[in-house]
């Protein structure tokens, strides 16, 4: 899956949950105040199911899930690691 497709699916998931909120791909969704621990949990489950990956515990860091761009990067990183493993 291309970076653009990953980015688009991540963006669609977040904006589907928060349709009234406008945000760009680099904006910190935690700092915007609407992300709580329950949504973070949904986000991780969404990423793992949609992209068929298991995010290693070391990658489960707030900075990796703070924006559309950072989530896209973590998916690419984890996918690449599982392909080369």
């Amino acid at each position, binding site marked *: 899956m291309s970076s653009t497709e990953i980015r688009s699916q991540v963006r669609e998931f977040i904006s589907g949950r*928060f349709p009234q*909120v406008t945000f760009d791909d680099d904006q910190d969704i935690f700092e915007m105040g609407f992300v709580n621990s329950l949504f973070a949990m*949904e986000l991780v489950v969404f990423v793992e199911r949609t992209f068929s990956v298991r995010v290693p515990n070391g990658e489960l860091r707030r900075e990796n899930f703070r924006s559309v761009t950072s989530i896209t990067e973590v998916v690419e990183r984890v996918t690449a690691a599982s392909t080369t493993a």
Partner: protein
Amino acid sequence: MTNVAVVGAGVMGTGVAQNLAQSGHTVVLIDRDEQTVERAMARIGLNCRLSHMFGGPETDSEEVLSRITGGTDLALLADSEVVIENITENWELKSELYPRLDAAAHPDAVFVANTSAIPITRIASLTSRPERVAGVHFMNPVPMKPAVELIPGHHTTPEALERVRSLLDSMGKKAIDVNDACGFVSNRVLMLTVNEAAFLVHEGVADAETVDEVFRSCFGHPMGPLETADLIGVDTILYSVEVLHEHYADSKYRPCPLLKKMTDAGLHGRKSGQGFYRYDGSGAAVTSSREPLPATG
């Protein structure tokens, strides 16, 4: 380390089991429904993995899960030194369960009732070991909350209470001692506050957003009473107020009709997508621009 049985794998039981296992204890997690146990185990695994994202310790989810055995058979608790009961806050259910726990557990095991309102002495009367029954009112989410109410029943021995306090201490919980009375301290005040806040909306004095704004802006509370009601569950609030009303037979605990109507209508708060506010999405996600329920006369 202690062998602990956690009975009831709902939100509270799941949190208690996770907290115990993270603290190094061996846990059996029992529920009458197998799927509920499976869901609880999955939730604990995910919670542990995500713990670090929210300022918690780095937790090895597999190690934590390896300390928990899930199942539906009460025979699993035969070797447990402490049994923590977390089933629904319903007297009929508890009075059916406790004699069975009493028969299944080791005679020396201490029972802990995780209840938010039901008197511990009344629960202890269901068993043959009232001197080894204590109450603990855990707060939600259990692994994140630093304190609990610790309640002895009329017959609870100091030794049994100290065993419970020591277990709580190992879980990182400060035990605040409170005497046995329906609702203890926390819910005697909180439920009455939420009920009265619901009356303000019911009578059209203010809408939910305004009531909560007064508590947040004037008193500095992180959440208003009606946001709290949505978090706890409007139905749970109603049941707790009804327990207080029944127990004290005092009209100050009369449940607000709006709570009854909302419960009947399925407006149970965050878990159902609408309570005093509407919540977006299918899960627990909350929109930043919540629409409050309009005030009704």
